[in-house]
């Protein structure tokens, strides 16, 4: 029997009172794709960071191809043949593909030799693995999928034969993701070992040979993918039975709450982000907006939420919103019955260094009930916070903890609690379950559906197609600042939505991945 490509024994790592990894053991055989799945905060990224030399394990041993190896830093990891593709690419935006690949691995002081050597190798690699990239293109002109390929090429150029990918499909369309998996298959055939970190069950089921499940810093199981089911994996991740589909009644839409006509947004650097969007959301209805990140959906939420100015005509309950003037701020929007769960709860929805109770008042801090004369009535806020924390089962139920000390799911629950409890007419919600563990996803979805059932209008933006498909009553696809079309969830599928997301409307025909890539790169300009 051959030695495993990677074997970890008894790896433990603590950050203060938090045990991120507890006695982890794992064996990855060469020439396989090994998935690591787990909720956010389960310790996947910590484990990989130990393997890549970013952290030092408190205890435990690492064996690479059967040999015990110390990995004190990422240079050592690279020497050991490990390559890492991060969730957030580490590329220099205004360098060419070739320069980025060579960066940090130059042969000498002069670049010329390395560059021509890299060019030859790059040609060879792209042919071998379907990794086509223009070596002289600048990174900033490439789409996200292309950039990811550059990251993979970077690792291969450094002679990696063990490749770790951290949530690689988070920013990709389904077609791009499929292409990525074909590349990974190719690499596997060449004898490379691949570790795929993800929280998407579908990807695990489709691509991996074996899968390890992590929960709360422990490795709960390692199984052959062929011998398991998504249901079983989900249970292993969460530790209890979970519902993977949202259980909801058919919608009974009422009169229109939100009506948007020809909405346009130009950002600070003069780029047109929304090029005339029209849509409407009715009472008792969830309108899902899907699209690849960076196609204007964030701007749509922001302009409706009063975070940036726009042009066009927007009415809520028949009354027009001020999109540019003195009343175009978020405060006024809240008074008009618009609640907003922002896409980025850490940067927008919460103040991470504020206590939970302070965050419960965030955005509503000038409510009369939170005031006592010239001062704020902190007692009233705390009382309110405790009630909301209890009702939304925020754990730990301690309003004196800072927001940053809650897990992603519980942070999101605080935001949801704050926004939903206002009983808004219109809820704007962006990426409601991004970085949220499965257990909390269920709960958050239930809350959103409950709000709809109470006759409120919901505008949902998400990059997770699964989420859009299962929550929405109607789906609008956004591409390059325009709505490409509306579909009913019952009458569409991921393939069709994926093509629309890439700006291709003749969805009956076949389209190559490169065509999709090119379209997207053109539309988004750059990553994100």
């Amino acid at each position, binding site marked *: 029997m051959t030695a495993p490509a990677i074997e970890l024994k008894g790896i433990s790592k*603590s*950050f*203060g*009172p*938090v*045990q*991120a*990894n*507890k006695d982890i053991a794992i064996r990855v055989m060469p020439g396989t794709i090994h998935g690591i799945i787990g909720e*956010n*905060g*389960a*310790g996947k*990224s*910590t484990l990989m960071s130990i393997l890549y030399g970013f952290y030092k394990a408190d205890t435990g041993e690492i064996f690479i191809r059967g040999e015990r190896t110390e990995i004190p830093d990422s240079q050592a990891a690279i020497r050991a043949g490990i390559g890492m593709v991060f969730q957030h690419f580490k590329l220099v935006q205004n360098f060419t593909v070739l320069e980025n690949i060579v960066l940090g691995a130059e042969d000498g002081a002069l670049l010329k030799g390395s560059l021509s050597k890299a060019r030859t190798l790059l040609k060879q690699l792209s042919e071998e693995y379907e990794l086509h990239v223009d070596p002289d293109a600048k990174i900033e002109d490439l789409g996200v999928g292309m950039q990811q390929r550059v990251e993979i090429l970077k690792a291969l150029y450094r002679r990696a034969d063990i490749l770790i990918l951290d949530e690689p499909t988070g920013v990709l369309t389904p077609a791009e993701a499929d292409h990525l998996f074909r590349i990974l298959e190719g690499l596997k055939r060449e004898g490379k070992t691949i570790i795929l970190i993800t929280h998407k069950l579908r990807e695990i089921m489709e691509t991996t040979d074996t899968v390890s499940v992590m929960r*709360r*810093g422990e490795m709960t199981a390692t199984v052959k993918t062929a011998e398991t089911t998504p249901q079983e994996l989900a249970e292993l991740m969460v530790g209890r039975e979970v519902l993977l589909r949202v259980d909801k009644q058919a919608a009974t839409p009422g009169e229109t709450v939100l009506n948007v006509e020809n909405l346009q947004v130009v950002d600070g650097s003069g780029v047109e982000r929304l090029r005339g969007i029209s849509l409407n959301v009715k009472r008792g209805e969830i309108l899902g907006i899907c699209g690849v990140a960076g196609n204007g959906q964030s701007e749509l939420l922001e302009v409706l*939420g*009063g*975070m*940036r100015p726009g042009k066009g005509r927007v009415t809520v309950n028949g009354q027009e919103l001020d999109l540019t003037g003195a009343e175009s*701020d*978020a*405060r*006024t*929007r*809240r008074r008009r019955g618009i609640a*907003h769960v*922002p896409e*980025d709860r850490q*940067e*927008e*929805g*919460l*103040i*991470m*260094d*504020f206590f939970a109770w*302070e965050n419960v*008042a*965030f*955005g509503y*801090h*000038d409510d009369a009930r939170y*005031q006592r004369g*010239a*001062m*704020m009535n*902190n007692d009233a806020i705390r009382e309110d916070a405790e009630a909301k924390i209890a009702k939304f089962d925020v*754990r*730990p139920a301690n309003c004196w903890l*800072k927001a940053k*000390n*809650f*897990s*992603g799911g*519980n942070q999101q629950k605080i935001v949801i609690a704050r926004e939903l409890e206002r009983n808004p007419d219109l809820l704007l919600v962006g990426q409601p379950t991004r970085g949220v563990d499965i257990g909390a996803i269920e709960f958050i979805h239930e809350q959103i559906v409950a709000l709809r059932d109470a006759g409120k209008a919901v505008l949902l933006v998400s990059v997770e197609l699964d989420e859009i498909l299962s929550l929405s009553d109607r789906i609008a696809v956004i591409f390059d600042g325009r709505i490409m079309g509306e579909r009913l969830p019952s009458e569409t599928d991921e393939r069709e939505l994926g093509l629309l997301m890439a700006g291709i409307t003749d969805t009956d025909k076949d389209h190559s991945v490169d065509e999709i890539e090119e379209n997207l790169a053109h539309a988004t300009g750059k990553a994100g």
Partner: protein
Amino acid sequence: MDKLPKWADVALIPLINLILALIVSGLVVALIGQDPFEALAIMVNGAVGSTYGWGYTLFYATNFIFTGLAVAIAFHARLFNIGGEGQAQLGSLGVALVCLMVPWPHWLIALPVAILGGGLFGAAWAAIPAYLQATRGSHIVITTIMFNFIASALLVYLLVSALKAPGMAPESARFVEGSHLPTAREVLGAIGIDFARTPMNVSFIVALLACWGLWLLLWRTRLGYEIRAFGHSDKAAVYAGINPVRITMITMLISGALAGLMAINAVMGEQERLLQDNVLGAGFVGIAVALMGRSHPVGVFIAAVLFGALYQGGAELEFETSIPREMIVVIQALVILFTGALDGMVRSPLEKAFLRFRRQPDKPGVPAE
């Protein structure tokens, strides 16, 4: 989970920083052939060993409280106001104008107006960089430091022209008797306590009130809530309907006003006339004070007293030993360096040390990364 317990963050780290600074300063003193322990004894005695020492220590501390608070409130809005020096200079101009223009009958009437004058002038000086930052994105660090030079030049201009008193020195006329602020000696003397003749005066009380007022503002009012929220994340502030331009302006106006208030202590309380070099670098010391005091009014107060002691102790060292002036500046600079700039040097090993001794079982709901 915060990596350090609160007491370590607010007390232990500054203490270690201070000790490190003293050790390095001690080495410097030893290097030039003096006894570091004697030097330390002289400094400590000089700063807190007598009512004379305390008077000067607290006099300097009063300056540093004002400038420290000025930097601290700006920090809360993540604005780095390093223009305290210039704002204090303008504040001194405001205070001087108030004291010179009106024949004040009594200090109780003069003081509130002087507070207004110093505050307004300081705020006005901060307003321009604040406006440029808020609406034009000109970095406030650059603009405020530039304004320090302009303030200094402006003061020089006025002191050799319009405000110059007869005589050769570039200084204004003496303030009228009625604007004289009671010193600690006068106040305590009235109740039978013998206190040395020092410039410490009732401004110290104003400084204490300013600490309390700032605490109230930051943690008990909507404005403070908005300032802190804006400081943590400007995107989040916009999300919450907080107007960044408004908060930037208001914060900097308060910051400038606090820096300007320093003048009621230095100019009205001590010099009793406008001098060219009246801020004595307190604007910059304020940055170290705010850093060391973790931008909390109580911390600022403690740090200001410490720096006041350092200043006074340094002056004594100069009197008592043959350690040259420059060396004393070096020692003071070392303390500022260690307590202000090199905070991280102590923090991260200390965090590690704490983590090692505090391993506890996993808590539910605590994220692992």
